[in-house]
């Protein structure tokens, strides 16, 4: 009667065997020191940070910074071009990250101004005339969106490179659905403060010519310019972390435009300066080296400010033409020099970052969670086993076998698809037991009903499975719909829950219907007189 029975049994044995090998066996092998082949070890079930221990950080990329940089650069280019074209304007002001204003365009030079301005700004900015010879330049919305996107992407790549340089095993750096947020997960990291500092430091390196200073007072510097700094210059503070003598903050007047920046760096590595103090040695790419050679050659005897994140780290005198190599020293400790060369190598961040969320799970806490998860799973399973045996007698065994296969395939499939088991995922695992056995309950109750209607055992079993199938499909689809939205909503741990629950539900359709029915068929084929213990 059941001619395909042999094939069905074989299918089940192979499926369960395979998933047991890739899912459950590696866990047992690790616990009881059994041999574990490398390919199984490499693909074993991944544990989330909440179980393994580690750092979970959510950062926001302040994309306004990137827009501001673009607007500043554009307005400075416009200033240069107006100067060389002899078009006098009274002022150029940055009003917002996406907007700047030019004031005092002489009426007789208006058309020349517009021509010069359009050459530089027309692709990215809209130009609006204001009253009194002023113009407002506003960034085009599409450009603004692109720049924000780019800033986040670039930040993501930079963080990725920096974290890789940190040498963390299996880090995860991912963009969050909120657009400007980035999730960084560092398993097993203990020095949270250092990791955060390295990820966050913008590391924007610029070389700017010093026009005046240093001086310990901003006002003294301003006096040299009659209280009004020329538009192309700015005042920067010297780095506070100067080794040794504490002289208070120093100020420099520097040119706003930096001919050479960190983007021109080819390598950066920690080393020592001539006084045997920690320093960072760098080499420039060819384009940067050319510009650096021109800058240093034309300005011998002047001072060059090395600016890191808008602070003057040091301002050495240009003794001669320098092309492709240089050194940054400024009272660093060895670790500071190491970290600085790391961040310089990995590239600058296009925008500053803000930490929104920080979670640290110590390894002990994770182990506690795993232990309670295992105890809860074992207890849940035991309670269900007892109930099913008492209530459904031998058919209960059928349901229990199906349930255990369900759990084995669930773990194996999670390992296979590379899903992550989290603490809420354990809850999903335990819940799968309760919900999974429900499918068998529905089937058994239907079989009882058919038996009560005086049908034969075989007919009752067939009717039980076939009639309940659609009901089960409906309940499982409904549950999967909500699990899908849960996955969409959640981050890390909650996604682990949604994944575990979804995979558990799908596997359950296979085990509660195909496996259970095959077990019945196996049982009935062994007997002459069909009988059912239910």
């Amino acid at each position, binding site marked *: 009667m059941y001619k395909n029975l042999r094939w069905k049994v074989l299918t089940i044995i192979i499926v369960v065997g395979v998933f047991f090998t890739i899912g459950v066996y590696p866990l047992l092998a690790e616990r009881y020191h059994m041999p574990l082949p490398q390919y199984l070890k490499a693909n074993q079930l991944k544990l989330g940070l909440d179980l393994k221990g580690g750092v979970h950080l959510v950062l926001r990329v302040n994309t306004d910074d990137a827009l501001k940089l673009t607007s500043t650069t554009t307005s400075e280019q416009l200033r240069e071009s107006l100067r060389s074209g002899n078009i006098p304007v009274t002022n150029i002001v940055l009003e917002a990250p996406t907007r700047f204003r030019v004031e005092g365009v002489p009426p007789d030079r208006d058309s020349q101004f517009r021509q010069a301005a359009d050459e530089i700004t027309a692709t990215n900015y809209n130009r609006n005339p204001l009253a009194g010879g002023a113009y407002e330049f506003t960034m085009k919305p599409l450009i603004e969106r692109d720049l924000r996107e780019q800033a986040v992407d670039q930040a993501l790549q930079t963080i990725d490179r920096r974290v890789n340089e940190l040498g963390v095993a299996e880090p995860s750096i991912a963009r969050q659905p909120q657009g400007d947020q980035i999730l960084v997960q560092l398993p097993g990291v203990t020095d949270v403060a250092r990791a955060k500092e390295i990820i966050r430091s913008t590391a924007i390196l610029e070389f700017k010519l010093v026009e005046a200073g240093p001086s310990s007072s901003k006002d003294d510097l301003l006096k040299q310019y009659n209280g009004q700094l020329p538009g192309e210059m700015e005042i920067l503070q010297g780095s506070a972390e100067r080794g040794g003598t504490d002289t208070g903050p120093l100020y420099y007047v520097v040119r706003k435009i930096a001919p050479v920046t960190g983007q021109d760096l080819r390598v950066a590595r920690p080393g020592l300066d001539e006084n045997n103090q920690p320093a960072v040695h760098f080499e420039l790419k060819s384009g940067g080296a050319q510009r650096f050679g021109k800058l240093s050659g034309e300005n011998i005897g002047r001072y060059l400010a090395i600016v890191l994140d808008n602070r003057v780290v040091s301002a050495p005198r240009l003794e001669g033409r320098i092309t492709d190599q240089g050194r940054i020293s400024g009272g660093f400790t060895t670790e500071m020099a190491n970290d600085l060369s790391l961040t310089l190598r990995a590239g600058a961040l296009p925008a500053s970052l803000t*930490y929104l969320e920080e979670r640290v799970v110590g390894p002990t806490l994770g182990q506690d969670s795993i232990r*309670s998860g295992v105890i809860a799973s074992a207890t849940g399973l035991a309670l269900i086993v007892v109930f099913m045996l008492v209530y459904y007698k031998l058919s209960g065994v059928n349901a229990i076998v199906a349930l255990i296969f369900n759990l084995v395939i669930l773990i194996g499939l999670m390992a296979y698809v590379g899903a992550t088991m989290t603490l809420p995922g354990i809850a999903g695992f335990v819940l799968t037991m309760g919900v999974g056995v429900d499918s068998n309950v529905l089937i058994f109750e239907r079989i009882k009903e058919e038996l009560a209607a005086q049908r034969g055992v075989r007919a009752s079993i067939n009717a039980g499975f076939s009639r309940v199938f659609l009901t089960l499909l409906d309940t499982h689809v409904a549950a999967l719909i909500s699990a899908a939205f849960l996955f969409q909503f959640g981050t890390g741990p909650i996604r682990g829950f949604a994944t575990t629950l979804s995979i558990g539900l799908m596997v359950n359709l296979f085990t509660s219907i195909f496996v259970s029915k095959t077990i019945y068929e196996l049982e009935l084929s062994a007997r002459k007189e069909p009988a059912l213990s239910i």
Partner: protein
Amino acid sequence: MHIFTNPNFNFVKWRWHAIAMSWVIIIAGLVVIWTKGMPKGVEFSGGTIVILQFDQNPNIEQVRGALSKGVPDGGNAIVQQYGPPASRQVMVRVHTAGAEAGGSLSATAEQVDAAIKKANLGNPQVVGREIVGPTVGKELQTRGTLATIFALAGILVYIAVRFQLSFAVGAVVATVHDLLITLAVLAFFRYDLTLNIIAAILTITGYSMNDTIVIFDRIRENMRSMRRDNIEHIVNVSVNQMLDRTIITGGTTMLSVIALYLFGGEVLKGFAFTMIVGIITGTYSSVFIAAAIVIIWQGRKPVKAAPAAPIAPAKKPRRARAS
């Protein structure tokens, strides 16, 4: 074995009482939420949690004293034993986090650490911490609500396609009912709303459909075989026929969730509690609420045309046996 042999309770007769009782619980819950607010976990309100492990179990009062001295707003900190006493762990929750700007998010956590170290309470080690700035919480609330609404809409459409609109409305109303009752009970017991609890609530959205769909399936089957009966009778017969399985399926899930509540550890307790409430109200609502809504929506007229099952034509019309 049966829980009930041929049950014949008149559930439909009691539907108005059931609806009234549900309203009482929901309104009471809303009043509590309105007056006292829904307590929120750090994910939603922002704040700092530090979990410390000591050499010996410390005196909670001493920890509290150390915090009120060393941490701004430390007097309002929540200090609890974390996990079983053997783990010698204490959870400290302060309602503030360092400023988001300037990268000092963890400032409060460090103050907590320093204050407790200073108090000399037996070699405290920070084993875990969780710091959430205020922006994240607001976004989460919106996204949690949206996810629930979309999940409900998805299920509404699915059931409307597989059954008919009145069934879909009944199922969704029953589920919304379950969510409101669960929120009300959470508010009564002052459970902090955390991500895990939101996960439980979304799980209930899917789970509470299960019993309802099982009963609806039987109603649909009986509508075909009991064409002469009115809808109230058909619904009542169906609910009675399904009574055993409604209780058993709820019960097995309950067994697993109780195991989770008792042994699953501190973090999953709220999740398990929410699921326990959800399973109870889900079972209750599929018996009393979902079916009642179908009756109300369809009116009291006798069934005209039975909706066809999408697949597998009925074998032969059978009389329902349980009445």
